[in-house]
């Protein structure tokens, strides 16, 4: 084979170049990020603006006036001025503070009276702060603002606009926003950022996820900078409504994540889909003797908020604590008696801590004991992932993906993993049975998710 025929990144024996194929494929998969169809045209427009192309065309137009008729000249002037007439000169957003004042350095000071300071921007965006929050408006421009949450809690309602650019910084973390509604809390002491997203989408960046993680509406994210972990959970139904009825973002007494309602926080229904470095290297299949002595999962705090139950403890990062407690009570007993929600939390804790076997047992138990529940539905997908990623058992993984997708068909409202399940089913089928068997799945994927993460793979399979 000559060099011209060499296929880069193709697996060939022990050749290091070939063995890097998986990584180079990953780079091709993820880079560049997906882009809108009009991105090229938009980029060219920005390029022309940046390089003064408009100035050049205006100069040429002026030269034309000298030799053209008065009518043409007027038309040229009109054409030239139209964009400027249509678009006023950019003006930075203005800002007023209700229930407080803007102090030197952009710091927001709460007024002496009760009430929470509220930042009102001229585009309609509002940011409500707890009284003890320490917040600075670092800069504003015509597209948005950069708000620094040095401590405490903020609730933002960003009005969606074309080319808007809103950034909320919290310690080393950053929340990028276009148009959305969310709460965020930053504890400088604990180095933990929590974001609850009610509407729209945001991207959160920080040391545990330097390239950013995207959130969808209904999710809660906990980014533990010190622990190097990112965890997802779901917002409890009515949680936002409950807080909105109070009209506040928290009493802020100790600048922790505190709701205005007196009742203890609900235990979030955890739906973690992925993880970033929660110390997964250490397996936890072996029993561990030490742990909490309480039978019922003890009261815990999450960002200062009192929470109970395994789901909340998993969300707070107590994977090993949950597993220890389950072992102390006896795994068999737990699997027989616990609720579906707690079993799913135990499975999540085990998955995050590297205990695939325990996770599989818990998920299987959920399937057996609660066959028609949404937890059982999700368990099918997770069992497929475990089979594929941990055991490399593609046949078993395919069985689970089929079950999950069949459940999704009968319950379209609970198909959060459908796209990934279809994609994984397609690639696993390709690996196990070849292109011919994978093609119908690829077609199905493309029909449903033409811009999905597996779309390129699907197109390759359809037209090899």
């Amino acid at each position: 084979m000559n060099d011209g025929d060499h296929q880069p990144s193709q697996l060939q024996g022990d050749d290091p170049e070939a063995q890097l194929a998986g990584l180079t494929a990953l780079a091709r998969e993820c880079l560049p990020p997906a882009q809108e169809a009009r991105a090229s045209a938009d980029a060219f427009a920005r390029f022309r603006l940046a390089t003064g192309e408009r100035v050049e065309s205006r100069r040429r137009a002026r030269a034309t006036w000298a030799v053209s008729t008065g009518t043409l000249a007027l038309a040229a002037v009109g054409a030239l001025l139209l964009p400027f007439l249509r678009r006023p000169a950019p003006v930075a957003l203005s800002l007023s503070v209700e229930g407080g004042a803007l102090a030197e350095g952009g710091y927001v000071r709460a007024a002496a009276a009760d009430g929470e300071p509220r930042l009102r921007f001229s585009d309609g965006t509002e940011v409500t702060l707890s009284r003890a929050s320490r917040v600075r408006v670092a800069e504003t421009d015509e597209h948005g603002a950069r708000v620094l949450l040095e401590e405490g809690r903020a609730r933002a309602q960003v009005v969606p606009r074309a080319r808007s650019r809103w950034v909320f910084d919290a310690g080393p973390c950053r929340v990028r926003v276009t148009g959305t509604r969310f709460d965020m809390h930053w504890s400088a002491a604990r180095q933990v950022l929590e974001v609850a997203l009610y509407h729209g989408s945001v991207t959160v960046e920080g040391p545990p996820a330097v390239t950013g993680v995207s959130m969808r509406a209904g999710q809660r994210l906990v980014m533990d900078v010190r622990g190097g972990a990112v965890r997802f959970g779901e917002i409890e139904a009515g949680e936002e409504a409950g807080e909105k009825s109070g009209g506040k973002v928290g009493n802020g007494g100790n600048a922790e994540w505190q709701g205005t309602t007196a009742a203890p926080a609900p235990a979030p229904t955890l739906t973690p889909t992925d993880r970033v470095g929660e110390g997964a290297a250490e397996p936890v299949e072996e029993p561990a003797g030490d742990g909490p002595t309480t039978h019922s999962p003890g009261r815990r705090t999450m960002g200062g908020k009192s929470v109970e139950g395994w789901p909340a403890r998993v969300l707070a990062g107590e994977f090993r604590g949950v597993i220890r407690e389950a072992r102390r009570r006896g795994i068999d007993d737990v699997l027989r008696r616990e609720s579906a929600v707690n079993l799913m939390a135990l499975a999540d804790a085990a998955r995050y801590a590297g205990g695939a076997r325990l996770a599989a047992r818990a998920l299987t138990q959920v399937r057996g004991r609660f066959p028609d529940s949404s937890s059982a539905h999700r368990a099918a997908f997770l069992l497929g992932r475990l089979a594929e990623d941990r055991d490399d058992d593609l046949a078993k993984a395919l069985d689970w993906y089929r079950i999950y997708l069949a459940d999704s068909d009968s319950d379209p409202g609970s198909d959060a993993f459908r796209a990934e399940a279809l994609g994984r089913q397609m690639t696993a089928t390709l690996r196990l049975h070849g292109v011919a068997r994978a093609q119908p799945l690829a077609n199905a994927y493309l029909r449903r998710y033409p811009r999905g993460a597996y779309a390129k793979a699907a197109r390759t399979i359809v037209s090899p």
Partner: protein
Amino acid sequence: MTDRKVSLSLVRDVEGSFDDARDEDLVFACLRQQAGAQAALWDRYYPIVRRVVCRASGPGREVEDAIQEIFIRLFRKLPGLRDPSSLRAFVISITVRVIKSEQRARWIRRWLGLSPDGETPDCAGDPVDLEAREALARFYAILDRLAPRHRTAFVLRHVEGLELTEVAAALDISLATIKRWLPRIARRVFSQAESDPLLAPYLARGIPVRELEVT
């Protein structure tokens, strides 16, 4: 000079859309400042330029400034292009020069300790698997340790999939040199990736990559 006259005599005037125009016709139209020619050249090469810049720079980098710089240089140097049919190679070579200068600047900033990586992370794109994101970041952290020329050579060949001759031309080095470089660079990358527990699973999947390539 004679060569240039010959090549220009072969080009055709393009009427209307440039969609099907040959590269040499597009270059000629740009040189004549024909309306829409620059936009057409941009549309044709923006995807590959963006792809190469993104893949060479790594995840989370701001690439728009680099892309603008590439096209500024391209349009400025276009009159000096001796063989308009080699426009693609010309674009890639300019792209590589800009990338290398950016990487050198980042290297210098990193060595001077001005910032950990010299850049502020950009907004992420699609919500892909978090483990994959982390693996990608670690993979590019390894590439960051390579000299800019070596890193660019590796990315062009193994990520972008360019032919060896194209890589050599883009880097302005001989084919023999690039053949010597690439296995050495790959060995170095492999040895570091092998010792990373998150990257190790990507090294020995035993699956033909063409079958698994995803967007």
